[in-house]
């Protein structure tokens, strides 16, 4: 019997609860996150990365990972953004910009900390001028660990942030 995918997914329950592994550690997925599940505008913000995370994020647009097949896209303007994707150790100099970007985004909004640096500072924890935890600046919904997180991990995390499950290998999503 054929059922549309959304009915199947609905019957299985929230996909976030089904995820048991993954490098993504979700804290709380707001119920509104489902609003973005098939149309998500992402604003990337560098808060002191080594450019490894940027290198992997830019590969998300490549045909190998192709995040547009999920309805996701990058946007230059925080006014159009649903999700703030933060990389880097969170330096003190970037705190006002992180707050301003977050405030400029319309609610409901999501924040994803990408890379170990944004979660706990990685090897730079305790350095002068380094805060090392994005949670201290803005509320974080999903954390994606890895140094840098691979594009697969990033896709998993972004899908988890909007309450979707990553497709199995070979699935076209």
């Amino acid at each position, binding site marked *: 019997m054929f059922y549309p995918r959304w009915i199947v997914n609905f019957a299985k329950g929230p996909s976030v609860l089904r995820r048991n592994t993954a490098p993504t550690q979700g804290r709380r997925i707001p119920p509104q996150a489902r609003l973005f599940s098939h149309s998500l505008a992402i604003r990337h*913000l560098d808060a*002191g990365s*080594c*450019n490894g995370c*940027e290198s992997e994020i830019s590969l998300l647009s490549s045909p190998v990972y192709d995040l547009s097949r999920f309805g996701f896209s990058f946007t230059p303007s925080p006014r159009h953004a649903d999700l703030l994707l933060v990389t880097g150790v969170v330096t003190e100099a970037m705190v006002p910009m992180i707050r301003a970007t977050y405030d400029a985004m319309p609610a409901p909004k999501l924040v994803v900390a990408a890379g170990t640096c944004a979660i706990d500072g990685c090897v730079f924890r305790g350095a*002068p001028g380094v805060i090392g935890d994005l949670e201290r600046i803005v509320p974080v919904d999903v954390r994606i660990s890895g140094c840098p997180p691979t594009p697969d991990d990033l896709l998993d995390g972004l899908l988890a942030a909007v309450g979707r499950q990553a497709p199995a290998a070979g699935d076209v999503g």
Partner: protein
Amino acid sequence: MEIEVGPGPYQRPSRCGFPSLRFAEEQEFAPEAFESSNPDPAVTGEGMHVVPLGPVRADVAEAMRYEMDVLGDEIHGLSLKRGYKPRGVERLMRGAEVGRALEIAERVTGTSTVAHALAFSLAVEDALGLQVDERTSLLRSALAELERLHSHLGDLASLAASTGTVAAAADLYRVRESVLRFGRHWTGHRYLRGAIAPGGWRLGLADVTSEISNFLEDVEHQFLAVRRALDHTNSFLDRLHGAGRIPAQQPLDLVGVVGRASGSTEDVRWDRPYAWYPELCAGRSPAGAAMGDAFGRYFVRCEEVQHSIAMLRRDGAASAMPSELPSIAIDGVGCGLVEAPRGRLFYRVELSKGSIATVRIRTPSSINWVAVPLAVANHNILQDLPIIDASFNLAVASLDL
């Protein structure tokens, strides 16, 4: 209409908004420092306005602030503001053990992991008077060339994307992804982290002898196809020719791809060969171009991709076993000089009782950023900025350190 040209960035490189580009002995991390780094507008006059950009800018880009003095569409001046992402690298390494300092060095610039690890290791080996065997040298330069390959492919892909040549960008990203996956297969990490260490290897390497020639053949075949197509795409070439030309009269002493694209022949691999480069560079000369514009940088990158593939072919790819970190508690000073994907990278390490006393790092991006304002404020319009930016593709992480 009168336009007054002040002491702008294209006259005096020292005023490009870099307060601490010099090799200062002690650098304080003051977030305000960059706010007042360039108090005067570079160009003033009627109709002149400032287009600010950043530090949160473009789609996916590092934090840096551009302030362009624009008249109509033409950019007459650019001041850059840095200092948004200093992580205190040199300070953090002070007093650290060699292993921890190596981990930090690998994270100074993500896409130049091998170059930083190698320069650091060479400096520590120099300080301790260690010698590594031929096979280690050979594999180290193989990893360095693999890194140059993926870094240049990424730069070329973003250059193609910036000109709207998205099909070529997609192909180049795909090739780059295959290089990154090969790196993971070989060393266990896509960016080759955790491979090189002072005295030998940190985690060892897998044996890829049987696969590497097929892999290189694939990469070369796909890359040459894209390059041939791009070399015959006028809409792509038209955007590069003359865009972001670095004025020739400025004695800037640029390094790396940016330097070699504007007439310099400096390449550490040829000038001061390290690792296995005395063998690899024999019978070859560094790629070069004299134009100094975006096309020159495109051309040099393409040539170097082909060089790297040829060097990897001669290198071979054996496995390696992890070795112990040297724990000789002697004091000493050593230097490491390598050619990173973006240019000359220098480490000076002072060891004291087995740990790091001081480190000084001179990255290629910290040298080359001064050329960006000069190149941008040289008869370009606003629409050229993404192309010029992509043709330089310098790292902000290794400028702010």
